[in-house]
């Protein structure tokens, strides 16, 4: 018996030694031919124009439809129902629960405190989440505690900041509605009753009902009451 010694110089890639090399051109085309499962938001407008238009103007316009609703190819092809989350709290929390790892300027809320455990969609339409909410102050509040020093209704100014579209009498503390969460609703009347079974504020608190809202609340929707009026548990 003898032992033969064979020296094989190492090739640049082991495939040069093998007999099973694949055919890249053919295989790449096979990969490229697979069907896509996500169709993209631009396809949804063909049937869902109203939602699409609303969404396209909203804060959520950078969130594609399928990010929340799941892949749409099967829905487009067969009408299979798209995914609609069972619990809005769980789905919204994926992005909006306050986490220390998230960028500071990303809108986050403490899920335990926000909304008294109610479903997020009770106040926030996911296709236009800020609908019915007062406009957010677009600038830092540091050094700007007296809102009326800039936002004066009668004095002309070069680049006039927005004049409040509502009367300012009785609303000297602008931050009660437009301020950050901690200040909002601080001195406004609180909701003295449980919200269970009472999601439609205006059912009772209308012009003919219990404690009608003041005249300057005209045009406001139920979805915005809780934005300023905290409950007594807060």
């Amino acid at each position, binding site marked *: 018996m003898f032992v033969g010694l064979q020296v094989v110089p190492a090739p640049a890639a*082991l495939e040069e030694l093998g007999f099973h090399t694949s055919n890249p051109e053919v295989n790449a085309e096979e990969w*490229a031919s697979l069907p*896509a499962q996500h169709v993209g938001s631009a396809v949804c407008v063909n049937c869902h124009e109203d939602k699409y238009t609303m969404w396209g103007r909203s804060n959520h316009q950078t969130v594609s439809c399928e990010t929340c609703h*799941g892949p749409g190819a099967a829905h487009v092809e067969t009408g299979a129902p798209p995914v609609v989350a069972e619990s809005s709290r769980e789905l919204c929390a994926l*992005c909006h629960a306050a986490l220390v790892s998230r960028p500071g300027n990303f809108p986050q809320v403490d899920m335990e405190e926000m909304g008294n455990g109610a479903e997020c969609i009770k106040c926030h339409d996911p296709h236009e989440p800020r609908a019915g909410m007062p406009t957010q102050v677009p600038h830092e509040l540091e050094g700007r505690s007296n809102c009326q020093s800039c936002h004066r209704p009668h004095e002309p100014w070069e680049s006039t900041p927005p004049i409040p579209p509502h009367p300012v009498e009785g609303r000297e503390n602008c931050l009660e509605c437009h301020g950050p969460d901690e200040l909002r609703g601080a001195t406004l009347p609180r909701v003295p009753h449980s919200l269970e079974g009472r999601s439609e504020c205006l059912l009772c608190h209308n012009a003919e009902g219990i404690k009608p809202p003041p005249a300057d609340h005209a045009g406001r929707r139920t979805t915005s009451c809780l934005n300023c009026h905290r409950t007594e548990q807060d």
Partner: protein
Amino acid sequence: MGAKGLLGGALAYSGVTSVMRKPARAEGVARGLLAPEPVKIDWKKYHWGFVCDDDKCIGCGRCVVACKNENNVPWEPEYNRTWVERYVIDEEGEFFVDSPNAGRDGFAADYMNVKYQALDIRKSFFVPKLCNQCDNPPCVKVCPVGATYMTDDGVVLVDHGHCIGCRYCIQACPYGARFMLPRGHESHFGVDRVIDKCNWCYHRIHRGLLPACVQACPVEARLFGDLRDPESVVSRITREKRVYTLKPDLGTDPKVFYLGFEKGVH
């Protein structure tokens, strides 16, 4: 498909779309989304690149879910073509890295955050990860049967018909990007127990679409485009901003470029 499709994809990506009045199915078919079709690729035209922005990622995990749905990746958390890691650095400078369920379920659940409650956290952020489609790929080098290869447009693919499942490439990849499809979970090519990995949604990018994870990201933390096109977002970022890659000392030449560098991210 070529330039028109890519332009359409670029327009769709920028949020400006022409509202087409065809019924949705016809549009889906016209875009090649609803039925497999042999696609002629002009792969020498593109050189794809990817950008991950650690400053923007919010750890929602929708990218991981979108990828699993798009690419028939097993739902179990052990199998991922892409995943999200969380880095937590305490006041002493100690690193804690985790990826609960690979980021598939987000990072908001209580049980994922309990362990950090007692820490004094100095900084914390998310790092999305996926195959880097290295220009000098160690996985291609070691495949004994030549089943994995790099296309001319810069994507590393695996030929499931030739893969023998030896897993040498899984060992060779320094990024943990490759995995083996479990028994019973067959790929589109009808085989299980072969190697799979992110391929930048090769079937989507050649139709002018974005990879599923890029489309799913709500905050534009993932970006994709053609590095040969000077106007694409990835070209602009790699030319104008300071980007980093993972494990550059290993010489793999990754094509996923990261923004938001932190010493110690690996």
